[in-house]
């Protein structure tokens, strides 16, 4: 498992290559890369700055990887999140998951991203033509994370 918070860019190919290097038990690696967009809520974004809570960030990322490990049989997980000032097109976040079969790798990768969006203490501030603005949390991110809630067992009729 690799968890990193860093200002510098990352190399998707190198990170994925490092996961499978020297081992032959991995049958699937899925990866997700989130990029900085140039448009958000109708205005052009010239740049964004990502702030985080050092200490809690690493702890929160480790906790959500641990939760993914409890739900699926995973062989390796890499999570890299950048902080600092980023320009449109720059990669922000990488999640890569290795497993024996694709189903677990696909599901766990999406799960980690959905949980990261609502639980990891990062905040984006955008620079637009109208000035700087903090990005508001989205209800759709809460809904995406809620899909993964443990199944509820309904009580039957008495």
């Amino acid at each position: 498992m690799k968890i990193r918070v860093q200002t510098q860019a990352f190399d998707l190919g190198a990170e994925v290559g490092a996961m499978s290097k020297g081992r032959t038990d991995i049958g699937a690696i899925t990866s997700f890369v989130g990029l900085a967009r140039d448009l958000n809520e109708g205005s052009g974004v010239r740049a964004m700055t990502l702030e985080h809570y050092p200490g809690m960030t690493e702890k929160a990322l480790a906790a959500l990887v641990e939760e993914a490990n409890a739900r699926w049989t995973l062989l390796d997980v890499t999570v890299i999140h950048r902080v600092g000032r980023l320009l449109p097109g720059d990669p922000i976040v990488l999640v890569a998951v290795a497993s024996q079969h694709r189903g677990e790798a696909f599901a766990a990768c999406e799960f980690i991203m959905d949980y990261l969006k609502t639980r990891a203490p990062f905040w984006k501030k955008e620079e637009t033509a109208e000035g700087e603005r903090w990005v508001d949390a989205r209800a759709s991110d809460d809904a995406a994370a809620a899909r993964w809630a443990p199944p509820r067992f309904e009580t039957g009729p008495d």
Partner: protein
Amino acid sequence: MKLRVLYFARLRERFGMAEETLDFAGATAAELIAQLQARGGMWAEELAAGRAFRVAVNQDIVALDAALPDQAEVAIFPPVTGG
């Protein structure tokens, strides 16, 4: 008891500080929020009922009825927007 209180993102800017050490006579996160609201101005506005903010105690997000241990690191911040 003494608490170390941290503020992040929009709240850090509005409050004009990243952290402070506070004397706290209450017991819960809700009581700390009430103490901060009583400062008035931005504090009252940003921490008003119905405003979206999160509280973490020793780096875990908690509900407002959580008890605060002495010397706790308490962080107050807006809903997260990473990824």
